[in-house]
């Protein structure tokens, strides 16, 4: 169910933007758009199916504790 809603949202966004970009022949925009959409899809899909993603806060915290006195 959640996955279905997610796919719907992504399809909607793609339908909203891609035809316009193709019509205007804005290829760099289309490529950036697709990359971002793919990243977004991977991140949210992993979260929806329940994969625990690493928390950036923790890594930064460790790094700073290592570097500072």
């Amino acid at each position, binding site marked *: 169910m959640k996955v279905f809603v997610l796919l719907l949202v992504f399809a909607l966004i793609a339908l909203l933007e891609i035809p316009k970009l193709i019509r205007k022949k804005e290829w760099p925009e289309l490529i950036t758009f697709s990359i971002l*959409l793919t990243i*977004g899809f991977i991140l949210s899909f992993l979260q929806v199916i329940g994969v625990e993603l690493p*928390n950036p*806060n923790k890594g930064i915290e460790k790094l700073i504790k290592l570097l500072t006195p």
Partner: protein
Amino acid sequence: MLEGGKISARQMILLVFVSRVIYWITSLPVLLAPPANQDVWIDLWMAVPIYWIVALPFYFLAKRFPQQSFYEYTQAITGKAGPWLGILYVLFLLHITGLTLTNFSEFFTTAVMPETPSLFFVISLTLIAAYAVYHGIEVLGRLSELIAPIIMIAIIGVVLLLVNDMNLQELTPFLEKGIYPSIFTGLSPVGQTIEIIEVAIILPFLNDLRKTKKVFIYAPLLLVFFLFILTFSELTVLGDDLAKTYTYPFYNIVRLIHVGDFLERIEVIHVTIWILGMFVKTAFQYYVIVLGIGQLFHLKSYKPLILPMGIIIVASTNMLGSNVVAFREFLSFEIYDWYTMFFILFIPSLLLLTAVLRKKGEYSK
């Protein structure tokens, strides 16, 4: 040209004001920065000169590259490393936006509506912010001009209603630990003010570039003045021990307002300005992120990027988790300020140095 709009120096100052002060009306980490006692309200004025020092690299860089944004002159100065540095900044801003949104939902789930899932707040705020970003910098500027006075009036009004509960005795003894710790007290708010990067990014959209100096001088004064009002009222109403124990000290003193039997429970004002201000703050950060990607990849328009970026923002906010204790440790003076200082002081200073050494950009008097 990605962005055709122009904003005035006043709008830019107010944009910074809303973005920063709105955070301080809930959490106020400066109370916990050393010396963490009743002197914070004096010591924090030290933040003004520190703000100016931190602004110096940005100011000179803007002088050298008057028509370019932070992303653009980064590329001009560092050449091949430029895009990577740009992407680093985009990731940094993305992380900050995630923190902002977590803060937003955390306040709601702690203080106002404990059972509503925080994802709901995150998604709704991102959606509304996306709408504002879609309309560009001019709309953001005007929004700040509209909302900043509301926030100012609300804060000052609330503080005036609390005058009866204030106890100036709480502020004594003056300068218990001497003047030296005030440097740390000053560093804490400056470290949080990542808005300085956002200003460096939108500086070329200033309608009168001669006013660059004005932005860098007056914005810190306005920020510190309101920080002073907030700290002063919290310390005098709660006392420093109690103010430190509360997660949201200003919210708690707003709850204390009672004028006779008829004017009570006006914390809804606090929640209202919190939503308004958070909307502007999120939209501003959202805007500089999509603008950054647009400028890094030399696109003609950033508008197609707004919706996919919104998804990334929501997803990365979710990644930050909602463990308040871990979150507060990360935002503490010892960690967060080092993290941001790297981006707001260290890298810009290096950039300026490189620009001077490689003789990039023109320096006009």
